[in-house]
């Protein structure tokens, strides 16, 4: 399994949560080290190889956001933000700064491990420089070379924008994409933060791929943050 080689750094100031995370990681066979301060995490990162970081945003010495900024200066390692804060703006800000995913406390071990798996898979795909020409999730399949989308083996018509949106989601499946990131990718940088167009586009797409748009099977809404294409 890919898991066994992965080294994970846990940055969390609360010992109980740290223990619980470490236990969950150990039970899955990950290697891990833990730090309780941002300073400690940064100095560990330069001395030891780390594949993925679990980062609490509310650290005693300085803000977790700063850690993301610093790490992103030299590394593309997946960062999963763990936060007790219910402010969605901060989650979105962390994601926009380059974090890959977030977990809001309280979270279950299952949830945590699932997020780690997704992040690591993306990492390995990047490392192997794999160029997929075809993605499939559930009954939904996209063929990039032929520019085609299939639902239950039946070819489906999509507008160019819907197609672009689907490609964006498939390339980042399992990851939360913030609203502002999607707008920037689909419409370009000048479009600002007008979310209405995105909401409409998303509604149109959902009506094509979901049986019940209010109980989506593929693209989940993370209220206040963005969207996520389910992974497994």
């Amino acid at each position, binding site marked *: 399994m890919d898991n066994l080689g992965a080294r994970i750094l846990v940055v969390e100031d*609360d010992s*109980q*949560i740290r*223990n*619980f*995370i470490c*236990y*969950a990681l150990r*039970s899955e066979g990950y290697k891990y080290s833990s730090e309780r301060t941002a300073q400690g995490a940064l100095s560990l990162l330069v001395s030891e190889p780390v594949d993925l970081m679990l980062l609490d945003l*509310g650290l005693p010495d300085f803000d977790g956001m700063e850690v993301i900024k610093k790490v992103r200066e030299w590394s593309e390692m997946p960062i999963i933000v763990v936060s*007790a804060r*219910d402010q*969605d703006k901060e989650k979105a800000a962390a994601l926009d700064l380059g974090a890959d995913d977030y977990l809001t*406390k*309280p*979270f*279950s*071990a299952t949830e945590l491990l699932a997020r780690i798996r997704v992040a690591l898979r993306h990492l390995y795909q990047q490392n192997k420089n794999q160029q997929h020409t075809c993605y499939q999730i559930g009954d939904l399949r996209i063929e990039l070379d032929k520019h085609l989308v299939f639902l239950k083996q039946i070819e489906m018509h999509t507008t160019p924008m819907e197609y672009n949106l689907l490609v964006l989601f498939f390339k980042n499946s399992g990851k939360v994409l913030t609203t502002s990131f999607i707008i920037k990718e689909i419409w370009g940088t000048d479009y600002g933060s007008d*979310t*209405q167009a995105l*909401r*409409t586009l*998303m*509604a*149109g797409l*959902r009506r094509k791929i979901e049986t*019940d*748009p*209010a*109980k*989506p099977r593929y693209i*989940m*809404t*993370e*209220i*206040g943050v963005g969207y996520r294409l389910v992974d497994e």
Partner: protein
Amino acid sequence: MAIHQKNYSDFVNLLFMGAYLASASLVGYLFRYIHFTETNIIMAYLLAVLLTARQTNGYVYGILAAIIATLAFNYFFTAPYYTLAVYDPNYLITFVVFTITAMITSALTSHVKQSAIKANEKEAETKALYMLTDHLTDAESMHDIAEIAVKIITDVMQCQTGCLCFDENGLPEGKFVQQLSPEEQIHRDVTDPEELKHRIEGLRTDSVSGTEFNDWLIFGRDNVLGLIRIPLKRTTAMTEAQIRLLRSMIESIALAMDRHRSSQQRQKYREATVQERYRGNLLRAISHDLRTPLSGIMGTAEMLMDMTNSNDPRHDLSKVIYNDADWLYSLVENILSLTRLQEGKLILNKQLEAVEEVIGGAVHHIKQHSPEHEITVKIPEELLLVPMDAKLIEQVLINLLDNAVKHTPKENEIRIQVSKNTATNDVMFSVADRGEGITQIDLPYIFQMFYTSQSKQADAKHGIGLGLPICDAIVKAHGGNIEVHNRSDGNGAEFIFSLPMEVNQDG
């Protein structure tokens, strides 16, 4: 007394005039006796007129003296003597020239004198005003200002002055300060607060008269700041200049009071901001310090559950720990949301949101916690974009669904339905369950804070009664309405809330 005073000063003036003219006549006799020319006699009369004008107030006595002097000269010193007739027509010229000369000189003298008086008054005025403003700058409170004002006005006006401050709402305070003597100030109760208030209401002139006192109002920028009370007797005796001075003084007092008020206001705002920050910090600290250990407990309990078989009693014990921690966690969340809502400081982050997404989020959340329950969703085919704070409305839906899940057996239906009401331009959300419904006793109180159902006993754990008040507060903050009734088509309750489709300008 004022009338007496006027008569008295008239009398003195007349006395002076008579004395001067009589002396001039005596001197005239003396001159004639030693055979000086008549010119010298005329000069003596002119001097008498000048002295009269200098001694008395106003032009009247000078002019009167000039005329009387002419007549006296005619009467005593021109032939025929002791009559007002003249034989020599040359004298007529003398009389006319003399009268005119005497009048002009007396008028000039009076004028100089008046100017000097005015200058003195002005100087006194400036001095008094300077003293007042100088002292007022040292004042530290409204009452300081009142005390200083009373002292200086008493000094300047020489009467017992009082000052009553008004509070921030423009209503008179219960006590006023009064100067009894230059050294002694006392604080007195207002005897007629109601009457005073009544008298001042709707009044825009600067003074009101009572039976014994005259109240001069101190007008600030926005409202009445206080009043200066001066005995009625003194007010009626005031000269124009004194009234002008009093007005200027009151103007200065108003400025000082206004300045003081606004600096107080600034101080208050500063304190409020600091408190706001403390409060925010405290809330954040509580949320962090409670939620972090609770999520630790939940995670650990979950791990223990995973490590044990479901028939192991330790599995059940772990589950109890997990459930209790979960319950505590949502309680903390609810208290935090409610505090924010109740402070009225909740800033709605309103955006056009797709109804289906918000419902999807809420249903997904509930599904994670209670996967056994089936929730049916009915929404219109068209995309509904409604202005709302999506996170908060999601919270409302989660609370309502959570409530429904708790009261509905697993096999029964929970239904969430959305419809558009084109007549009122509202979107109606309905969450219906198949539970036992709500008793008539509970129905009116269900959205009240900390209300727990009367019909249930010991199992009060799920009835802390914060979920529904939070829904109520959030929906109302959006300009919507929430209500509940029991379903007519069988068991269960139905919660319905509305959200306006259009953003209110003031909302």
